[in-house]
């Protein structure tokens, strides 16, 4: 059985694979915790299947042994873990499997066969955690039969397009995690309320600065003006609502009054319960 990979071909065959960041973080973590002597880790991917896409939302690693001529996967373990996971999220099904490493080896074909028994048309995800090519290539493949039917039949792994999908809260979580990149010892504390608003305002300011430099470049002729960008800019400027000064004043004041009143009320309540406590203890 031979296998081929077509890395340079953008594929339109097969479903789009949407991955959640939690899956990638999990794979990275299990790679870091691999046993001595193991060069790669494998595991099962869980998720949901749609008509045109496969959404991968969870994964767990499966212990396996790999040597030159044979590969052994702990299938009992895989089944067990899947059952446990199913209890928590009954809507997740096995959609495929993952392996770290750069290439697809012959052993992968065997493992893929095993997974085709568990799921229809499983997805194979590879992530190059050893960074052999300088980047962490995250690719997805699906297997297709090829060859002459009846004689030599082989399996080809065709690449699929990979997209990243986030829930809103996940996006916010990932943004926070991004900040650990720049910290010296990769740690980051959680900031308190007003600092967060300041931080967000800072980010918007940076973005505005980028846009401004672009505009100045266009005006001074350094860059070609792009009409679509110009339209976006028009939208941006028009987004600031045009309200008369008095209306805005009244709106602003009433909002500020609401907030101040609520602050006053909550301070009052806190004083009240503190008093109550002191009186009871008397």
């Amino acid at each position, binding site marked *: 059985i031979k296998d081929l990979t077509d890395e340079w071909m953008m594929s339109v065959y097969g479903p789009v694979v949407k991955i*959640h*960041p*939690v899956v*990638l*973080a*999990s794979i*990275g*973590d*299990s790679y*870091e*915790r*691999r046993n001595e002597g193991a060069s790669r880790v494998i595991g099962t991917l869980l998720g949901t299947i749609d008509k045109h896409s496969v959404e991968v*939302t969870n994964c767990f690693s*499966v*212990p396996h042994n790999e040597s030159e001529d044979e590969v052994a996967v702990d299938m009992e*373990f895989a089944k067990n873990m899947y059952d*446990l996971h199913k209890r*928590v*999220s009954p*809507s997740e099904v096995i959609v495929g499997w993952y392996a770290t490493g750069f290439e697809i080896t012959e052993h992968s074909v065997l493992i893929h066969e095993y997974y085709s028994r568990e799921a229809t048309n499983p997805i194979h995800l590879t992530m190059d*955690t050893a*960074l052999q090519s300088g980047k*962490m290539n*995250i690719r997805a493949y699906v297997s297709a039969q090829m060859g002459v039917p009846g004689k030599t039949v082989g399996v080809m792994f065709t690449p699929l397009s990979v997209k*990243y999908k986030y*829930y809103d*809260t*996940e*996006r*916010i*979580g990932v943004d*926070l*995690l*991004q900040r*650990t*990149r720049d910290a010296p010892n990769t*740690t980051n*504390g959680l900031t*308190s*309320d*007003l600092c*967060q*608003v300041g931080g*967000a305002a800072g*980010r918007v300011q940076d973005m505005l600065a980028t846009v401004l430099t672009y505009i100045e470049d266009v005006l001074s002729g350094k860059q070609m003006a792009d009409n679509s960008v110009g339209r976006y800019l028009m939208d941006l400027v028009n987004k600031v609502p045009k309200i008369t*000064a008095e209306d805005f004043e009244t709106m*602003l004041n009433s*909002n*500020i009054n609401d*907030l101040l009143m*609520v*602050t006053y*009320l*909550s301070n009052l*309540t*806190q004083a009240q*319960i503190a008093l109550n*406590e002191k009186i*009871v*203890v008397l």
Partner: protein
Amino acid sequence: MATRKETPSTPTAPMASTSPGATLDSPVKQIQIEGLVVLKMIKHYQEEGQGSEVVQGVLLGLVVEDRLEITNCFPFPQHTEDDADFDEVQYQMEMMRSLRHVNIDHLHVGWYQSTYYGSFVSRALLDSQFSYQHAIEESVVLIYDPIKTAQGSLSLKAYRLTPKLMEICKEKDFSAEGLKKALIGFEHMFEEVPIVIENSHLINVLMWELEEKCTVADKHELLNLSSSNHLEKSLQLLMDRVDDMSQDIVKYNTYSRNLSKQQQQKHQYIQRRQQENAQRQTRGETPLPEEDVSKMFKPPQPPPRMDTLLIAGQINNYCQNVKEFTSQNLGKLFMAEALQGHNS
């Protein structure tokens, strides 16, 4: 309602979670969470926790010097009606055994729970946290607030019971005298532990890759100006709690009044008795036998003070949250004013 969880009592032997540096007396000063745990918690709530159900899970990790490192977690299934024979302990044991096979830290260090607008100070939480902390000294409960997170910034807090509260829970003495002795106020129930997020270098590389593959976040939820919805709900919850509190106070007042009335009655009875006895003695008759006064007048049951403490703590929490929210919004409003002022 939140379910009770028990720590598996058998594996306390392999769970020697104190490293040689940390003694049992020195509490953990900081919590270090891996990014993976954060993502898993967010995902768990997003998929399974719609509505006001709380989702819970177990935290795994270890203690290093004065830090509690949380390296992994796994979710707990919801308690549904048809799960009468569902064995929580067995699920935990199986999960931990399986995770041990793939070299994931399998030491229990705490648990996490999602919350609805900050309402998590309840009897169930107290009991669960107490049983965890009793078994494992350094365990914490992570409270994840998904609604606040959706508004723009991750809201994750770690709490632990203060030693004073642990003492009280151990003795199960929840009466007013017990609490007075320990001088516990609602502010001293939980102590918050600062959290730091840590990512390994490999995960950092992953973050760089993700950054370049994805578009810039097109939603800046944090700068959203609309606040009335959130304020309304918070205030509604606050009002409910204050109602509970006032009911509790009324109960306590009736109890005090009953007690004092009973004392008065006792005194009157004893006085009458003595008078009668004195009269009988003057008349030369045998005095009436002394009756056990305390048996006749049974003192009323004092109401438990623990609930009051919990309600007060919850109210305090709500107030804190509301104040944080309003301060953020005031900042945003002033920014909007600056923007508008520039225009006109």
